């Protein structure tokens, strides 16, 4: 069973039954194997390595959607509303980590930008992507108190920073130039909270997977408005708390579960959505 989905015992028993010639047996077994693979939407048997990481968010989604799971499981708090709606129409939810070898990190005074590339070629052509979210983890900035009313009223500085998500749709003419990009989503976030942020990147991913646009990746921009006024150590600490790159992440053990995650919601035209199943059963 190491190479295919049919266990070796089953293969041997069928071949030894003597109903067909060995060639016929092999041919029937291979045909059945193909049907099994097709049923799961696989090209070959998966053989994941020990380093394979299952994001906690996907486990949470499974628990939320599983018909056999705990029905009291609610949607993950950090799940965006657009994603919640999308999940109700999707029957396939996929997660992707970015290609770290292709990341480009730049940190200027008061601004950190990171370019990500997610390889989406494993999404089959027949799967229609209805929504996609880019999830970024950010740690609480130690020493950043929750804003009081006065700081809330005072522009963006003092306990807040802004995260902008862009779709890169062109490369610059010169190496020094910035990539051509369009804004997909933006959010003003509070420094004093540790949580995942979900950004709607559906327009870009839908275009890429439908073949209407070329996947050049995303650019994440983190603006720290007040960084220029800080001492060096504090400024460095603030720029590291949005987990967009391994090099900005001090705890290597937790990086696999804290790194950015792209989640796509799609439907391959076969049957109900995951959420409808749960509602139907309930």
């Amino acid at each position, binding site marked *: 069973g190491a190479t295919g989905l049919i*266990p070796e015992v089953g293969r041997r028993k069928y071949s030894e039954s003597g109903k067909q010639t060995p060639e016929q047996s092999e041919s029937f077994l291979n045909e059945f194997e193909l049907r099994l693979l097709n049923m799961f939407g696989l090209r070959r048997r998966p053989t994941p390595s020990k380093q394979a990481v*299952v994001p906690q968010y996907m486990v949470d989604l499974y628990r939320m959607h599983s018909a056999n799971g705990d029905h009291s499981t609610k949607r993950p708090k950090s799940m965006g509303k657009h994603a919640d709606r999308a999940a109700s129409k999707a029957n396939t939810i*996929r997660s992707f980590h970015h290609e770290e070898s292709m990341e480009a990190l730049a940190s200027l005074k008061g601004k950190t930008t990171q370019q990500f590339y997610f390889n989406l070629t*494993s999404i089959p052509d027949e799967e229609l992507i209805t929504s996609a979210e880019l999830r970024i983890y950010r740690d609480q900035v130690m020493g950043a108190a929750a804003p009081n009313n006065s700081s809330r009223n005072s522009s963006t500085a003092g306990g807040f920073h802004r995260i902008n998500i862009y779709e890169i749709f062109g490369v610059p003419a010169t190496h020094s130039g910035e990539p051509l990009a369009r804004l997909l989503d933006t959010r003003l976030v509070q420094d004093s909270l540790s949580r995942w942020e979900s950004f709607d990147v559906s327009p870009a991913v839908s275009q890429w997977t439908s073949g209407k646009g070329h996947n050049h990746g995303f650019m994440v921009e983190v603006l720290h408005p007040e960084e220029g006024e800080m001492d060096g150590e504090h400024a460095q600490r603030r720029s590291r708390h949005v987990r967009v790159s391994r090099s900005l992440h001090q705890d290597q053990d937790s990086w696999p579960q804290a790194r950015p995650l792209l989640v796509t919601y799609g439907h391959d035209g076969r049957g*109900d959505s995951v959420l409808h199943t749960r509602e139907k059963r309930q």
Partner: protein
Amino acid sequence: AALRKQRRKQQHKASCKRHALYVDFSDVGWNEWIVAPPGYHAFYCHGECPFPLADHLNSTNHAIVQTLVNSVNSNIPRACCVPTDLSPISLLYLDEYEKVILKNYQDMVVEGCGCR
């Protein structure tokens, strides 16, 4: 009366119905790539579809007629005991590229059996 009761019980036992079947993914070696669940209750249908077909056997008009013909001509087989209602399950798994996928698979659990 006791004999009749026992015979009726045996006949009822043998008639088409849903039986327990737990599919443990580790039995077929799929636990290496299916993250959750570790297995699931799939159930299966088994039993006779005897003449005359009872109401609870969820038969179709065709199955009733086929059973009737079988009662006079045994060359024609009885109706088959098959799943009449199936439901999907969600699987969380790693594909061949080590991408994590949550997918809903149709017709994985037998909810009801009948003679068709």
